[in-house]
């Protein structure tokens, strides 16, 4: 068996084990490679900075068990930035998993910044119908929610007495793992109401969202990279910044794997031609 055959016949468990190593090693011994801030992430940071104090931000907190590693930490960074700038935050969730993450992630941040529930932030909980649900919320919040996630009546929450629908919302932040979401945001948020949108999403959804940038969606933060960039922008490096070393090594490993296997295939094809 020649070298090219050996390269092309590495057992999959070995390939997978090496992948585990490339992810795990930087966690034990961090490399600390520099991370450059992208323009799409910086745009989101500037939008939040540019809002006048007390602006209302509607955040669709689409963090789920599958996406928590990739976008969870970026979502927390965005919440921190919004609340620390003195803006009001309304959290909703298009999937049944989302409220659990809101209740786990947001209270510690709000407490750290001395923000009061009901005045500075409100958690309305899950809404059904994804696109239709979002359209209904923007049209009239009370048509979807009569109580918040904790069972309080909306009229008893000071923040919700001021916010009735799209006219009272200054910014929409959407955290999502759904590739359908960018077009839904363009249809239901940007086109009818012209509300600025910040999208934090996985890499696949980010690529699908680029046609809408910067006209309909003003900022796209893609995957863990976008989260890490945002953590650095607000000067609070956390899990995403730490995870970028793992991304670096694992991507480098994948690149090498692809280059070597393709060279081996090319070489083997040449050998076969010669034999003929």
């Amino acid at each position, binding site marked *: 068996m020649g070298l090219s055959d050996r390269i092309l016949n590495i057992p999959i468990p070995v390939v997978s084990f090496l992948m585990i190593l490339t992810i795990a090693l930087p966690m034990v011994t961090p490399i600390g490679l520099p991370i450059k801030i992208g323009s799409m992430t910086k745009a989101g940071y500037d939008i939040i900075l540019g809002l006048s104090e007390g602006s209302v931000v509607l955040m669709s907190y689409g963090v789920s068990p599958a996406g928590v590693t990739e976008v969870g930490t970026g979502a927390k960074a965005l919440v921190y930035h919004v609340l620390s700038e003195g803006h009001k935050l309304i959290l909703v969730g298009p999937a049944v998993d989302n409220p659990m993450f809101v209740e786990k992630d947001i209270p510690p941040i709000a407490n750290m910044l001395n923000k009061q529930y009901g005045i500075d932030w409100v958690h309305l909980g899950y809404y059904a119908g994804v696109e239709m649900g979002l359209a209904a919320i923007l049209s009239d919040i009370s048509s979807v929610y009569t109580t918040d996630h904790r069972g309080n009546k909306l009229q008893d929450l000071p923040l919700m007495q001021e916010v009735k629908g799209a006219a009272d919302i200054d910014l929409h932040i959407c955290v999502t793992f759904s590739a359908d979401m960018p077009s839904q945001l363009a249809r239901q948020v940007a086109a009818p109401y012209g509300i600025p949108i910040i999208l934090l999403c996985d890499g696949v959804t980010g690529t699908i969202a680029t046609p809408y940038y910067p006209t309909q969606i003003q900022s796209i933060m893609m995957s863990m990279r976008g989260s890490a960039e945002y953590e650095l922008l607000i000067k609070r490096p956390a899990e995403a910044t730490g995870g970028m070393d793992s991304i670096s090594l694992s991507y480098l490993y994948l*690149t090498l794997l692809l280059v070597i296997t393709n060279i081996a295939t090319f070489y083997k094809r040449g050998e076969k031609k010669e034999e003929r």
Partner: protein
Amino acid sequence: MSVTVKRLIPVAIVFIIGFYMIFVSYIVVPPALTDVSKQLTSWGPIITALSMGFGYIILMRTHGRRTIRLQKGEWLYSLTIVVTALVYPVLYLTVGPASAIYKLAYEHVNQTIGASIYAIVLFALTGAMYKAFRARTLNGFLLLISGLIVMLWVAPIGEVIWAGFPVLGAWILDFPSKGAFRGMVMASAFGALAIAYRTLIGVEGGHVAGVEE
């Protein structure tokens, strides 16, 4: 119930409500008409919630039957679904979502399984890339090269290897990728418009599927 009633009534409902919503969206109308459209929009989440409830009943009926009949090779999985689908709502309704026991059941079961499955996908992808991603044609070669450049653009190590990776990666995303996606979005939007129009006038019968003419 006759086929005419089964087909005509749904088509008529879609026609009237569809054109009404289009009318209200594009033409300035009295507030009373806008209020009706808002009311109709709010039905969306309600209908979705109802369909979820309906799906729950079907799920329980199907898997409940399999469990009771001890269907070979199926019943254990069905039992798992039935128990899970019962435990979470019961916990939610009795102790509430904020309780420690519900959080424990959610975070240590659902969340862990979800994250694990997503993590496993990485290894499946790595294996698939290793076995199948070969530049056999010019198109395949271009796909491979652009994929590698974008990967090294996302990873900070790419810039350490060569400063051109971020520039090339951003260019690929900004021009070829964005341009191609915009074309696809426009094409699918025109397609969706055509299907919507056909549905509104009753030519497209997807929503009344199963009802013969």
